[in-house]
């Protein structure tokens, strides 16, 4: 309460400027919390020496194996009050909706048990309650948990998930992201709370190909909304748009930007769409939001294997289910089951510290699909193989399978 502030000449410089300053926030907390006085001291010290001073360790809550990120200071001799500075990862609701009531309750709990510093949100979507002593972790969690919030993921486990605002406010949304998010994640609470997988596994949900959740590249399993039928066109709105913006604008910004050249502006200012070749990229709909909408036969494309760079280079998720309906209870159960199959197969076949995408790279997509019981489909490929390096003496059997699928 009364500890003297350290000199923080470097951090002080971060109090100026138009963007909200976290330093000002930290200082405000430091008025009441010695922990924050020393935290500021340690941070200033990092700025000066250009090195970090946290190390890991153990901190957890009863019943769970993960979700607390333990931080112990390596410079506790200089800054003793912040020698422990753990973070609790707490799962947000889909779409990160809150009312002020719940946010105020979080503040109260964290003011009482923690540092008073909350990150909204972590890059994986967690509400991060940052800065807690080992002693207080359990109490803090208990109170948060009583509010209906549960621990997020950490370690080799299913991780906290994110879904876009989608159905709640976005006209592009092609499936109920919130429902998908909760259906899947709440079927994996055990794998989330008790890390026992080869490595982390992330699900992300985007309602359309704009992929506002970066799911293709930042999740092991991406669920991206799409549709199978024709784009819905309100030709009167098209005409209005053309009138307002001019034909040239529409041609330069809509028609010529279609990746598969399936748009054409008719002479009467209506739009012709070659829906057969539309790849549901969303661009034309993005530009003409009032005139165009996704079709009515909606669902999702599932991609697997996205992650960042270590250790074989970045991976994008790649298509494993071109289209999946997501409407009925059974549809959502199927989605859960798909996630389950993938995680089971990977848990069995992934090496230690090998993400699902890295495993697919190692064993090949065809083997992965066989392992999880999915049929291959040309939509999963940018192109078929360009090399002849494959033994295919049972080509005929494989060809017969395709024919059976096509006729059956």
């Amino acid at each position: 309460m009364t500890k003297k502030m350290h000199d923080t000449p470097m951090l002080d410089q971060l109090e100026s400027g138009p963007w909200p300053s976290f330093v000002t926030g930290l200082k405000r907390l430091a008025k009441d919390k010695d922990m924050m006085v020393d935290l500021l001291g340690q941070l200033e010290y990092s700025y000066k020496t250009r090195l970090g001073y946290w190390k890991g360790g153990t901190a957890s809550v009863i019943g769970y194996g993960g979700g607390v990120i333990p931080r112990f200071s390596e410079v506790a001799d200089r800054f003793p009050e912040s020698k422990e500075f753990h973070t609790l990862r707490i799962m947000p609701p889909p779409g990160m909706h809150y009312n002020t009531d719940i946010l105020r309750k979080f503040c109260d709990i964290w003011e009482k048990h923690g540092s008073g510093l909350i990150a909204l949100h972590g890059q994986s979507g967690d509400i991060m309650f940052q800065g807690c002593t080992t002693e207080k972790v359990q109490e803090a969690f208990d109170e948060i948990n009583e509010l209906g919030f549960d621990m997020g993921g950490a370690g080799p486990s299913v991780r906290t998930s994110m879904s876009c605002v989608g159905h709640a406010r976005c006209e592009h949304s092609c499936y109920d992201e919130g429902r998908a998010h909760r259906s899947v994640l709440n079927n994996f609470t055990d794998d989330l709370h008790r890390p026992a997988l080869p490595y982390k596994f992330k699900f992300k949900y985007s309602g359309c190909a704009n992929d506002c959740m970066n799911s293709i590249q930042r999740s092991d399993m991406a669920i991206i909304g799409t549709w199978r039928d024709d784009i819905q066109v309100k030709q009167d709105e098209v005409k209005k748009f053309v009138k307002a913006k001019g034909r040239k604008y529409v041609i330069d910004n809509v028609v010529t930007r279609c990746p598969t050249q399936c748009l054409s502006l008719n002479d009467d200012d209506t739009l012709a769409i070659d829906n057969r070749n539309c790849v549901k990229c969303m661009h034309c709909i993005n530009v003409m939001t009032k005139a165009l909408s996704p079709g009515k036969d909606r669902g999702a494309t599932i991609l697997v294997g996205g992650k960042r760079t270590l250790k074989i280079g970045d991976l994008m998720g790649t298509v494993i289910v071109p289209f999946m309906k997501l409407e009925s209870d059974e549809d959502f159960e199927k989605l859960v089951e798909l996630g389950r199959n993938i995680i089971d197969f990977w848990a069995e076949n992934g090496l230690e510290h090998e993400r699902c995408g890295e495993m697919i790279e190692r064993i090949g997509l065809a083997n992965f699909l066989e392992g999880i019981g999915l049929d291959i489909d040309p939509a999963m490929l940018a192109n078929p193989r360009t090399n002849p390096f494959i033994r295919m003496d049972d080509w005929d059997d494989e060809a017969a399978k395709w024919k059976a699928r096509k006729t059956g």
Partner: protein
Amino acid sequence: MTQPRMPIESGVPDHFQYMHPVMRKNYGQWDWHERPRPGVLHHVAKSGDSVWTVRAGTQRQMDVYTIRKLCDIADQYAEGHVRFTIRSNIEFMVSDEKKVAPLIEALEKNGFPIGGTGNSVSMISHTQGWLHCDIPASDASGAVKSLMDELHHEFTHEEMPNRVRITTSCCQINCGGQGDIAINIQHTKPPKINHDLVANVCERPSVVARCPVAAIRPAMVNGKPSLEVDEKKCICCGACFPPCPPMQINDPEHSKFAIWVGGKNSNARSKPTFHKLVAAGIPNNPPRWPEVGAVVKKILRVYKEDARDWERIGEWVERIGWPRFFELTELPFTKYHVDSWRGARHSLNASAHIRF
């Protein structure tokens, strides 16, 4: 002693309980939207209902006073509901257009910038850095604050050809992901090994396995089991550091910043793409990292001038070509830009397509 409390394994909470009522009512039934001004979205539902959203920037790592202030504003000027975006912006929803202006005024008065929508530069994806992480070579909060100070105008105005999504990462692990512009730590020297600690702290076989280029060998040093690094092979990736802190990769001098452009997650028009290295060797210079800001602003200026509407940074460069990108931005092109990793051939110009 009392029974320990077991957690209620409730998982992901129900979002409807916190959702703005107009959004709840029109869930899955939205029709179209427009942006009346930067930072404001107007969504119209098929029912005819409207919701106006005001988006404001935050520092993400917020003290409870800041959060309570935002709640006060939400209660007084909005309708008590907020949401956060993937970029730590806060959104206030109101069902009446008239509430928009006072809300904006209140937010601005309290120092929250309004913007981040449409073709603006939104908030930078934020990681932990020195504030909390155990492996950072730089700070995230400070770097993001410094950059957003410099990009304030671009956040509050929609003047870019298309949206710009910047990411930062305070180590090469890159929790920040792909970005139109990515600002990432890049180590430039192999780890220095603190041999005294290895025996106690590291599981040696798993550290060896973690190295992408098999540069780490178990070795006896001063009679104790330790590790050694083949510095010719080492690509300075830092993958060995998290599992084995004595493999000190972070260095105040030699952990530099690198800047990448052209990452894109959306499928709009072009397929998603990874970001590509454009600048490196940039000093890690707290508290305001001016050299980083200078490069980012230079790239943004050129993009703003040269790109066509709707072209994301990567799409723009794809059209004008990399030689022109380096020419316009005046960034040096070096042999390090040439990929040397597996599959490098896919990044070479296997065509006679050249712009002069």
